[in-house]
Structure formats: C-alpha cells, structure tokens
C-alpha cells in the first residue's frame, strides 16, 4: 500500500495543473469540487498505511521514486514513518475540509478556479515537504510551500494591503530560507549527503558539538521563518489579508507548523546540540509571551487569531526545545484542529457580517448563527485549556515537560503558565465580543448562518477539537508511543509521576478559569469597556516589535526591508530606483555610476583589471 503513496503528492498536483489550465472551462462550483475530491482521495490513500502504524503492524519505510541528483544523495524518495503519517493526515484531512469550506466561501469569486489551483498546489507542496526523505527534497517542498502561500496571501492582489502582505511574507521567509540553505551546505559538507537515514544514523559519531550547534541553529532560523517565531513572526499577522480559509489552512493548521515539523524531523541533530535546545526553548517561550500580549488588545477578529497562532506556535517550539518532541507535535495536532476551527468560524462570522472584521461591531451573534456559535465555543474552551478539551491535554503536557527539566526551566514554565492565563483572557474576550452581549452591527448588516458546505467542516473539526485530547492523556500515552519510531535515539525527558502531573494540570486549569472569568466579567456587560491607557495602546501597536524588527533585522536598515519589498512592487518598476532603499541601493547606484556608458572608462576598467590580474597571478604563483 505504501507503494502508492506518491499519489498523495500527485493528485493535488494534478488538480492544480488541471484547474490552472482548464479551470475556466470546468466552471464555478465544479472546479472546487474537483480540487476537494482530489485532496480527499489523497487523504483516503494515506489512511490505510497510517492505520498500520496505529495497530503497530507497519514499519518505517523509505520509498524510492526516481533518481534526481544522485551525486549529492538527493533522490526523489519518500520517508514514511509515524511523524510523516501524522502530518499527512493533518494536512490532507484538514486540507480537504478547508477545500470543502472554500467551495462555499469563495462562491462567486472571479478567479475561483485559480484559487483552488493554488490551494491544491499548496497541498502538494506541503506533502513534498512532509514526505521528503532528504533535506534537498524537503527544501523543494519548503520553497514551493512558500511560493503557494505567497500566491494565496496576495490572492486578492488588487487590494494593496494583500499585495504588500504577500511581499512581506515572502521577504521574511527568505531570511529563514537563507538559514536553511546555509544549514544544508554545512550538512552536506559534514555528511556528504542529504539523505535523512544516513545523516541521522551517522550523526552521533560524526558530528561535533560545535557543528551540531551551527547546523541546528541555522535550521532553527529556517524554522523561525516558516513557523513565525520571534523575531521573524512579523509576516504572519499581515498574512491575514488573504482569504479566510487560507488563513485557516496555511497560517494556522499546516504551513506554519512546517518549521516545528522540520525541527522534530531533525530531532537527532538537536539532541546533539544542547545549546540550540536552550535557544529554541527560550525563543519559543518569548514568542508565546509577546504574541499573547499583543493578542490581548486587537480588535480585528482575524488579527487576534493570528497572534494567538503565533503564541501557540511558541508553545510548540518551547516543547520541542525542551526535548519533548512528542508533546510539541501533539500540540501541533490539536492546534491544527481547534485553530482551523476558529479561523473557519471567524470566516463564517465575517461572511455573515458582509466582510466586517472589527469585533467592536459584532456581538449578539449567538442567536443568528447557532452552529458557528457552538463549534467556536468548543474551540474557545479548547484553546483556553479547559478540561477535558484537546487543548488542555497538549498544552499541559508541554508545560509539565518544561517543569520537569528543572533549574532555569522553571522560569520558562512560569512564562508558559502566564501565557495560558493570557490566552484564556483574550480568547474569552474574542468569544464574548463576537457572540454574546448586545448587537453592535452596522446598519444594513443582516447576519445569517452560513451554507452547509461551510458548516459541515465546522462540525467535523469541532468533533476532533473535543476528542483529540483523549489519545494522549498522562494516563494513556498512546500518541507518544505512536510517534516513538520517529524519535528513536532521542532522549526523552524523564517521565513525571501522576501526582505531580495532576497538581500541574490543576494549576493550569485554575489559571485558565481565572482568565476566562476575569475576561467574561469585563466584556459581557452591555457596554464594551474602554481599553485605553499606555498598556493597551502599546499592545494594540504590537509593542512596535513589528516596526522595530522591520528596522533592525530584515537588513541593516528599514529601507532595506522595504527595498526588497518594493523590488517586487509593480508600481515601482517604472521608476525602479525609487523603490530601492538602504545600503544596497546606494551600492547599486554607486556601481551604476561606474557604468558611465563611456567606452574609455570601460576600456580603463578592462586595463586596470587586467593589470591587477597580472600582479595577482605573479603573487599567487610566487614569482615575486
């Protein structure tokens, strides 16, 4: 059955091609159904081999497809193990639901087939990334994912904000990709191959701590770009300019987890680099904290969810940083369900409110949209960490494993706990402002429940949101065992006894409840409380982090970041120089001045360079 696994990639890819070329002829709903069908079939193909892992009957396998660049050990081959099986299930499963949802949501969009082509392309790229058996192929998936995400974010490219957001995502990811690329170079220089099996089996013998640290930190730069970690997260909130199902699929459930997945895949290397582990954990915790603080004050419903995604990604990275890979991946799984649900619910609300995204103009939607209200209610409780919803179990496990490391990790645990409080607070704020209280709608808005193609995915996801936690309770660690073959040779954090776990769990639950109650009391009144004062304002402005890192990180100087953005900007092409900022612009312009158009100066260049060449040769050749 594993032999047909390549179809999981091929089907969505074929769908993308067909929709791209014949989409217009296929017509409006049909092209959407086609795309959905292909992804659903992909999912169905992957189900039986996955069940093999659950029952314990299957083995980790490498499926060789064809030679690509044999010289560097980069073949088209698939690695099928529990980790990739899980990711395949999430990507194709959630992906299929979101396709279904989009059929209704994108209804009457002018470029309907194009949208589904991109969506299919994204699924195919993601599957290449997930199933890759070597770093080179993974990189290809990585790049394709970036490309399709860029296409989808700026899908409504006539909206300037969408075009700009696409650009920003592209640029920031480019920084991450650079880290990844250099990591690939170092890996190849060290191991002479890109193949996972070879690398992971030989790594403990070959790798020195220094090289391992270098590789893993560079990989983490890549992961931070894709998984929106501090400071590279700044693209994600802007990416909400894309259609809402895209936000749900890409920027909540799947693509942003690619970084987490990549670190989990490279767990063997991270185990050899304890320093990197600390860095990863600290960055994760800080990301969770900063993003949660920003999420507190946002009024745009999608922005709240975006920052909450970043915050939850921070949790995952924290988990992986402390060596709790299974816990990190577990949170990834549950988060995929409830965050996709939240986004789709938000999309349903926005759909109902005729495009209104400001929560201050919502309220009282409970009666009008009962299904959306119920399903989102479930997701709200899950993300807030309320027992026994899925979010409680996965978040708790990460916190517990962090606690178990002891020492300085107590601080990280405390941070995580505080973030849990904040999460409960801002999610309750979102929920209450949207669904409860008195309606604050604009005139002429008539909310209504969404069509069935949109509500069915909500219900399905709602079911998993409630139940997914059961697979990995401290009492019964089925999920962890399931993943064990993927983390062979990785030292697990020492297991905690149930009593301590119960205490930690109770603390987390109490904190969550405090957050919920506090927030409920604050926002459920007839009037919205005024959110002013320095803290709120700073938070609303994202603490200027975006601006700060935009200025200091993308390149030395904010103009450089804008420069890359603007080189992509069509408006600037006419006067190209206008868009190019920062040092590079000056360098390029200085160089362009050398390009005077004067023959004699060119001849001078040739003569001088030739003379220098002679001297260099004489020097290098030892004739001095």
């Amino acid at each position, binding site marked *: 059955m594993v032999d047909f696994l390549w179809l999981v990639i091929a089907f969505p890819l074929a769908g993308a091609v067909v929709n791209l070329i014949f989409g217009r002829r296929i017509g409006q709903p049909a092209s959407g159904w086609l795309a959905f069908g292909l992804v659903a079939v992909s999912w169905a193909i992957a189900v039986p081999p996955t069940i093999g892992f659950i029952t314990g009957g299957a083995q980790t396998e490498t499926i060789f497809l064809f*030679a*690509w*660049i*044999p*010289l*560097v050990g*980069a073949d088209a081959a698939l690695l099928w193990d529990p980790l990739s099986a899980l990711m395949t299930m999430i990507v194709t499963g959630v992906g299929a639901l979101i396709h279904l949802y989009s059929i209704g949501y994108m209804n009457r969009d002018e470029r309907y087939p194009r949208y589904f082509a991109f969506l299919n392309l994204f699924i195919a790229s993601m599957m290449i990334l997930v199933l890759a058996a070597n770093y*080179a192929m993974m*990189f*290809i998936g990585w*790049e*394709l994912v970036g490309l399709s995400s860029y296409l989808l974010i700026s899908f409504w*490219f*006539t909206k300037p904000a969408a075009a700009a957001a696409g650009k920003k995502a592209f640029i920031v990811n*480019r920084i991450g*990709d*650079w880290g990844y*690329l*250099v990591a690939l*170079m170092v890996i*190849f*220089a060290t191991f002479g191959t890109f193949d996972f099996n070879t690398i992971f089996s030989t790594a403990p013998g070959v790798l020195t701590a220094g090289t391992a640290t270098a590789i893993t930190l560079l990989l983490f730069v890549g992961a931070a770009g894709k998984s929106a970690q501090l400071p590279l997260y700044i693209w994600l909130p802007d990416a909400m300019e894309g259609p809402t199902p895209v936000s749900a699929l890409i920027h909540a459930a799947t693509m942003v987890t690619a970084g987490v997945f990549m670190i989990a895949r490279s767990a063997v290397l991270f185990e050899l680099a304890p320093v990197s582990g600390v860095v990863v954990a600290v960055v994760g915790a800080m990301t969770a904290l900063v993003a949660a603080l920003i999420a507190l004050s946002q009024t745009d419903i999608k922005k709240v969810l975006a920052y909450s995604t970043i915050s939850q990604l921070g949790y995952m990275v924290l988990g992986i940083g402390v060596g709790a890979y299974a816990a990190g991946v577990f949170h990834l799984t549950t988060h995929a369900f409830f965050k996709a649900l939240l986004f789709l619910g938000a999309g349903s609300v926005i759909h109902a409110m005729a495009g209104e995204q400001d929560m201050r103009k919502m309220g009282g939607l409970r009666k009008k949209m009962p299904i959306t209200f119920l399903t989102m209610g479930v997701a709200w409780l899950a993300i807030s960490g309320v027992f026994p919803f899925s979010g409680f179990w996965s978040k708790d496990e990460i916190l517990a494993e962090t606690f178990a490391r002891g020492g300085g990790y107590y601080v990280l645990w405390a941070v995580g706990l505080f973030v849990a409080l904040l999460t409960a607070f801002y999610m309750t704020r979102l929920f209450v402002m949207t669904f409860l209280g008195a309606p604050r709608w604009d005139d002429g808005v008539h909310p209504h429940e969404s069509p069935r193609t949109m509500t069915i995915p909500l219900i399905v996801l709602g079911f998993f949101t409630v139940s997914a936690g059961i697979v990995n309770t401290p009492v019964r660690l089925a999920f962890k065992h399931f993943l064990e073959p993927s983390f062979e040779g990785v030292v697990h954090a020492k297991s905690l006894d149930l009593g301590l776990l119960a205490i930690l769990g109770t603390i987390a639950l109490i904190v969550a409840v405090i957050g919920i109650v506090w927030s409920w009391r604050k926002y459920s009144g007839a009037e919205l409380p005024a959110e002013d004062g320095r803290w709120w304002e700073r938070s609303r402005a994202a603490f200027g982090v975006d601006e700060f890192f935009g200025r200091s990180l993308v390149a030395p100087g904010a103009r450089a970041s804008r420069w*890359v953005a603007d*080189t*992509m900007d*069509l408006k600037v*092409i*006419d*006067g*190209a*120089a206008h868009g*190019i900022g920062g040092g*590079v*612009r000056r*360098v*390029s*312009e200085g*160089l*362009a001045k*050398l*390009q005077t*158009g004067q*023959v004699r*100066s*060119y*001849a001078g*260049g*040739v*003569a001088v*360079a*030739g003379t220098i*060449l*002679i001297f*260099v*040769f*004489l020097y*290098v*050749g030892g*004739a001095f």
Partner: protein
Amino acid sequence: MQNMALLPVAFEVILVTGAMLVLLVAVIADKPRKMWAPIAGVAFLASVVAGVFQWRAVAETGGGLFFSTPGLVIVRSPMVVMDGLSAFAAIVLGLVGFVAFVGSWDLVTVLGKRSAEFVALSLLAVAGLHMMTATPNLIVIFIGLETASICFYVLAGFIRGSKQSDESALKYFLLGSLSSAMFLYGIALVFGATGSLTIYGANSIRDFFSLTLITEPGILLAGLALMLAGLFFKVSAAPFHQWAPDVYQGAPSGAVALMAAGVKVAGFAVLARIFVGGFISQIDTWAPVMAVIAALSMVLGTTMALVQTDLKRLLAYSGVAHSGYLLATLVAGIDGVPPMWFYVSTYAFMIIGAFTVVSVVNGPTSSGAPIASFKGLAKRSPAMGWLLAIIMFGMSGMPFFAGFVGKVLAFVVAGEAGYLWLVVIGTLATVIGLAFYLRVVATIFSSEGDEEKLEPSRSSRFVVAICAAITVLFGIVPWPLLDVVREALPL
C-alpha cells in the same frame, strides 16, 4: 579511418558551405529569402548531426584524435582535436545556432535583402565559436575567437541609422578588440615562457610542464593572467563585464540571443580546454583567482541587476552573475567540467528564449526593452508570458527548473574543491537574485499595461516553447544530460 577524414572539421565545413550558399543564392535567385531559411536551417541541423557523429567517433576510439590536415592524424603540432569536449560543444553550439537562428527569423524578414548578410554571418559566427573549442592550438583559438567576435560586432550594429545599434557596435568593437589584443599578448607571453603554442602533441605545453621544472615562471603567469583577462571579457565576468549591458541593450533584439548564448558556451568550453586541459598543473595559481572573479561576478551581477529598468540590461547583468556560477564550477578542475557543461548548455537555451520574447514584445529591431513594456504580457500573449515566466524561474534557480540543478552541481563541486566561502556567497547571491527575476515574473502577470494582443510569429513561438521545455525538462529529469556531460571532458 578513411571515412572519418573530414569528420573533425565537418562542423565548420558544413556551416561555411551554408554561408556561401546563402550568399550565392542572394546574388542569383529572384526571391531569395525563401531559400535562406531551409539552407541555414539544414546547415545548422547538419552541423548538429556532424557533432553527434563526432561524439560517437570519440566514444568508439575511447579518447581524442588529433588532426592537422584532413585525413592525416598528426601527433606533432595538431591543429584540430576531436574529443568529448569539442564533440559536445559541436552538438550544443549547433543547436544553439539553430534555435537562435529560428528565433531571429522575425529580424530576417524585417531586414529585407540585406538579411542575406545576417544569415551568413550567423552561420560563420557559430563556425568560429566551434573552431575555438575544437583545437589545442592557442593561435587557432584566437582565430576562432576573432571570427566569432567580428561577426558579432557586425550583428550588433546591423540596424543602420539606429544610434543605439551603432553605439553598441562601436563599443563592442573597440572593447572587444582591446580584450582580443590582451588575449593575444597573453598567448605570446605563454609562447615565450613555454616555447609552445599547442596544448597537446609533441613539444606541447603539457610536455613542457611534465619535463621542465620552472622556478621563475613570471612570464608564464603574466601570460596566463592576460589570457584569462581576454576570456573573462568574452564571457562577461566581472570586472570585465561593463560592455555587456550596453551592447545587449543597443544591439537589435533579434540578434542578441546568438551573441549572448554562443559566446558563453564557447567561452567556457575554451576556458575548460585551456585551463583545465592545458594548465591543470598550475591550478593552484589560477583557481583561487578564478574563484575571486566568480564571487565578484555573482555579487556584482546580482546587485546591478536589481536596479535595472530594461530587461535586456537585466539579462546582461544576470548573465554576469551566471558567469560567476559557471566559473565556480571550473575552480574544481576536471571535476568541474561536467557541471559546467550542464549549466552552460541549459543556460544558453534559457537566454535564447528570454531574448526571443524580448524580440517579440519590443520588435526584432528594437534597441532596449523597458521592463514596463512587459506589463500584463500574460494577458497580451499567454504563451509568451508563461514561457518567459518559466525561463525566469529557470534562471533564478528555482527547484524543478534546470537552473536549480546547475547551481546545486556548481556549488557541490566548488564546495568539494574547498571553496566553501564561494558557495556561501553563491547561495546568498542566488537568494537575492530571486528578487529581480520574480520582479519580471510579477510584471508579466500584472493586470495593468497594454491590452493590445500580441501575435508572436510561429518561429518565435516555437523557439520560446523549445527553450522553456528544455528549462523544465532538465530541471525534472537532469540525469540523461548528466550522464552525457560526464564524458564531455577535455583530453
């Protein structure tokens, strides 16, 4: 052996015959233009066939053959050599010539009667380019180089009465002659230092290095430096690149493709022949210099391409960067030759395709191609827009396109040769380079711009489709070509 008498020079003979026929027909026939296309097309394709036969002959004899006079295998001072490098160069150059010629057919139709000269010069230029690669004799290399270069000077200035075209021709001519003179002086110095003009054979440069221990190789080094300077100029590696953007921009769009692609292929084949084949014992001297030039080309080409507003200039600067990647392969010595071949032969078709699109959009006689004129190309002519986008992706080194495989191979061999810093710079340049390639792609798909439909001619559609197909094909299934280029080594 008897039937192989003319084989080593068959490529040149076929093309020169074709050129003569074209000129003859131009004088004699009534409506000659109809006959040039078949003559030149057949000549190019026949030259490719000759290349294939050469390839097979080399494979059969299991090595190279030297020739001085047809039919006579002469070991002392051979003038013609037939080996994997020259045979593969014949195949690639023949195809490049054919594709570029078909792509320039729009220009030929516009030129009127005078186009006979254009066709003949195209044929002779390709013959000269191959002559460079199929000889171990430095002077014959020089003659071949000049044959091709002089043709290109004329082609650059072919549009009479156009100031840009004239300017481009004069710049190319003055600077090209200067660099040729430097190249020639380099040969003279090498001749002085080693007493030999030929790489193989008796009393050859290779013999000299194996028999003589030179303690004070000052003149030899100076000669090498000047030869390198001349060749760097021809392949437009920084800092010898300044002519390229001006010349490409000014020259008629229909004629640039051959200039850009042919010179790169032949130039790098010659670099491999001379430096990897002849001066391999001096590799410790020239490889570091080449690496520095490679890095300089990548960085300069990329940064300059970022600010261009003209697609032809942009392509010229990106060509500088590509020269950098190509030079990065050669620093690895003989291991670098197969990657070099893979890279340059795929790149040649990408650049032909790109310039053919330019010729379609801005007209075959145009000088300059503002990027703004490509706005909404995908709407005006979906075929051209998409294919140009594919070619841009190919050049930028996106995975699944030929440029990616070429770059990976280049970085691998350079890394294995110990130039890790070069690899880091190269990847950085590649990543930055994406920006300007994607800018072009974004322009193609922008919604603004002319609404007027473009009706590309059948010939240009064919050429661009072929080039894009090669870009994709060798990006996805590179190994057949990789297997072939493994044999395309200098002796």
